[in-house]
């Protein structure tokens, strides 16, 4: 069903910014709420400046079943009635808008900073000291209630973030997650680009998702310039995206095994993950795919010898990871820790707008490769892998299903590699355009939105990492769980801090 008052378009299609309907805030608000109530997801909700200090709200709505996107907008002043009051999906987005632009979504139930940075305009003084995580945390009162604070520095080689638990004994009543320690100012710095740093920003938005974010960004830029990507380059991009998924999913299965003390799978997967990373390095010299995805195509071509070697290695990789994963499913002590731990019901997933593995593990059938296919995925479909338990087991098992399907996809692609060049001639970006690019990264839906200015440069760049949707899912998964299960639940989501903090 098309969103009323919105213009409908496709993933990776640029439209004239003038075509984006500008509504009054009230109609904008009710249109977003109605769309969400009818099953649509908010892929992005943000404010962008439109010269002379005017601010415009944009909502990008994803219709998963129709495979179309809708966008609508409204000009706002200093305050507007919060969307989140009647549409939970909007809550984190509106906190972000309030923090970036010092405007107030009135009635927002939970208005706090998400990254702790000086606003882009107005509000507090620019030189006021930043105090990350200094805010009113949700508190549970009671004689036997206690609070546990963890982070920003965690006990491991992981990114920083702060977790605040309200507990009754071992039982977690509430977990509140406070991030922003990784904020590097990517969106701000991207404005006015693209320049020679832009591609490095997107490659390192989340360094474990280099291929995913860079593909999303390149699709966006290509939509502005009308630059085609050759079939060969599309195949190589898709292979790289699936290799990234394989490496990370395998690493996650190992990490989950490690967290329940099951060392065989933990140590096997630690190694096999590296084998997948090395396959990416075979193509481009870098384990994370740096330099591989470039606007207009890919930076490295492969020879027949490379393809043969990849096919061999991928077969061996599948064999190894099958042995490691099957140990998990056949070990009762592992299953008893995975099953029924950190359950997120499908209804909660929908309300919060969760994406990717956690959503599919709860039974939500949604995968950009299937619902909003671009590039090679328009011709070669990857079935959506779902489970219905929504617990740690479900999230682990969906990864295992996806591993098998990614391997099958890569094998098919290697067997029918199209010939031809890997890049096309650069073209200038068209001025005054609006475009959205979605890519199913290994964590879930990656969304890049941009508007070009009168000179064709990026006037605004909005990045939504899947983690931006999903951190709240982790908080919900912890409700009524034992605090000792936090590491396990956390690994089962394995969200990005820098992808969120930007």
């Amino acid at each position, binding site marked *: 069903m098309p969103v009323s008052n919105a213009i409908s378009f496709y993933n990776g299609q640029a439209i004239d910014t003038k075509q984006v309907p500008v509504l009054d805030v009230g109609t904008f608000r009710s249109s977003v709420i109605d769309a969400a109530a009818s099953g649509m997801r908010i892929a992005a909700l943000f404010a962008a400046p439109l010269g002379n200090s005017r601010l415009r709200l944009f909502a990008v709505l994803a219709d998963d079943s129709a495979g179309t996107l809708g966008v609508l907008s409204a000009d706002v002043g200093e305050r507007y009635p919060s969307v989140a009051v009647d549409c939970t999906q909007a809550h984190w987005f509106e906190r972000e808008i309030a923090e970036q632009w010092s405007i107030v979504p009135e009635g927002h139930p939970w208005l706090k900073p998400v990254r702790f940075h000086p606003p882009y305009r107005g509000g507090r003084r620019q030189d006021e000291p930043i105090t990350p995580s200094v805010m009113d945390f949700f508190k549970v009162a009671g004689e036997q209630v206690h609070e546990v604070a963890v982070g920003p520095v965690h006990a491991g080689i992981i990114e920083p973030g702060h977790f605040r638990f309200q507990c009754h004994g071992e039982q977690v009543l509430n977990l509140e997650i406070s991030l922003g320690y990784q904020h590097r100012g990517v969106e701000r710095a991207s404005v006015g680009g693209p320049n020679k740093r832009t591609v490095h920003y997107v490659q390192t938005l989340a360094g474990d998702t280099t291929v995913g974010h860079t593909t999303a960004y390149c699709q966006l830029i290509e939509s502005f310039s009308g630059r085609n990507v050759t079939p060969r380059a599309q195949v190589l991009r898709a292979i790289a995206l699936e290799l990234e998924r394989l490496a990370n999913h395998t690493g996650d299965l190992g990490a989950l095994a490690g967290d329940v003390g099951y060392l065989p799978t933990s140590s096997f997967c630690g190694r096999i993950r590296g084998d997948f990373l090395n396959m990416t390095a075979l193509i481009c*010299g870098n384990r994370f795919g*740096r330099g591989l995805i470039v606007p207009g195509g890919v930076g490295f071509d492969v020879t027949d010898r490379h393809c043969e070697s990849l096919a061999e290695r991928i077969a061996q990789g599948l064999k190894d990871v099958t042995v*490691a994963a099957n140990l998990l499913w056949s070990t009762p002590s592992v299953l008893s820790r995975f099953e029924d731990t950190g359950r997120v019901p499908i209804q909660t997933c929908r309300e919060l707008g969760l994406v990717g593995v956690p959503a599919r593990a709860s039974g939500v059938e949604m995968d950009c490769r299937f619902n909003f296919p671009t590039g090679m995925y328009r011709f070669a479909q990857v079935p959506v892998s779902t489970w219905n338990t929504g617990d740690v087991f479900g999230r682990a098992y969906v990864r295992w299903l996806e591993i098998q399907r990614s391997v099958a996809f890569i094998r098919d692609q290697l067997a029918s590699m199209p010939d031809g060049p890997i890049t096309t001639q650069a073209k200038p970006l068209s001025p005054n355009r609006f475009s959205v690019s979605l890519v199913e990264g290994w964590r879930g839906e990656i969304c890049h939105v941009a508007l070009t200015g009168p000179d064709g440069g990026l006037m605004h760049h909005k990045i939504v990492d899947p983690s931006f949707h999903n951190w709240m899912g982790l908080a919900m998964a912890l409700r009524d769980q034992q605090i000792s299960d936090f590491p396990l639940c956390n690994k089962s989501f394995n969200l990005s801090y820098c992808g969120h903090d930007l």
Partner: protein
Amino acid sequence: MIKPLWARLQQGHRTVAFPKGEPVLPERFRGRPQVELSKCLADCTRCADACPTEAMRKADGALTIDLGRCLFCGACAEACPTEAIEFTRDYRLAGRSRDDLVVHDRAVKLAEALDQKARRLFGRSLKLRQVCAGGCNACEADTNVLTTVVFDLGRFGIQFVASPRHADGLFVTGPVPANMKLALEKTYAAVPDPKLVIATGACAISGGCYRDHPEVCNGVEGILPVDLYIPGCPPHPITILDGLLRLLDRLG
């Protein structure tokens, strides 16, 4: 019980031969860049113009590459009309001082070992606390793999520990966002003396591609005294391991 044992047999022995044997690196690996000055055209600055982080400089006819800023993206080599710049497959990049990271010519100054006293303390057992301060999780991931069976860091007596109080030093990644500065300083203060600091990746050394963003501190420089720099974006695990082993004089 029989299944895990069978699986164990199938997975085999996987630890790399390095440092006794040569490491296996990808064919297209971009390691230490090398400049052939005789090929460099007098008034050309295309490489420096292409560099996203100003790692490449040309002054008085001499080309220099600051490995502490280099992202190893190869943009300079691609821009050069005379192929004067080449990214070799040399994975040894670590240095003990910031100046040692600046490549002028073919002379390579690799990291020297700690002095004897420090080696007596840390040479056989070095416990490090890793602090990610704005790292994108690539430096972190390729540090983490050192603890897998592939690299088996434990065989050198090096271990990443959970508490700074148990550590002999910090291993820092990321450009140090303003939001992480205090946490980094506090973690450093919690490490007992004498302590080491290892800055890993372009971000931690110089801010990387985030250099001069008001949101970051351009790495650890000026915040903590650094004992070892490991360049790369991210450095290959072998580059990190090589740096650590050089510091401890364990390569001999």
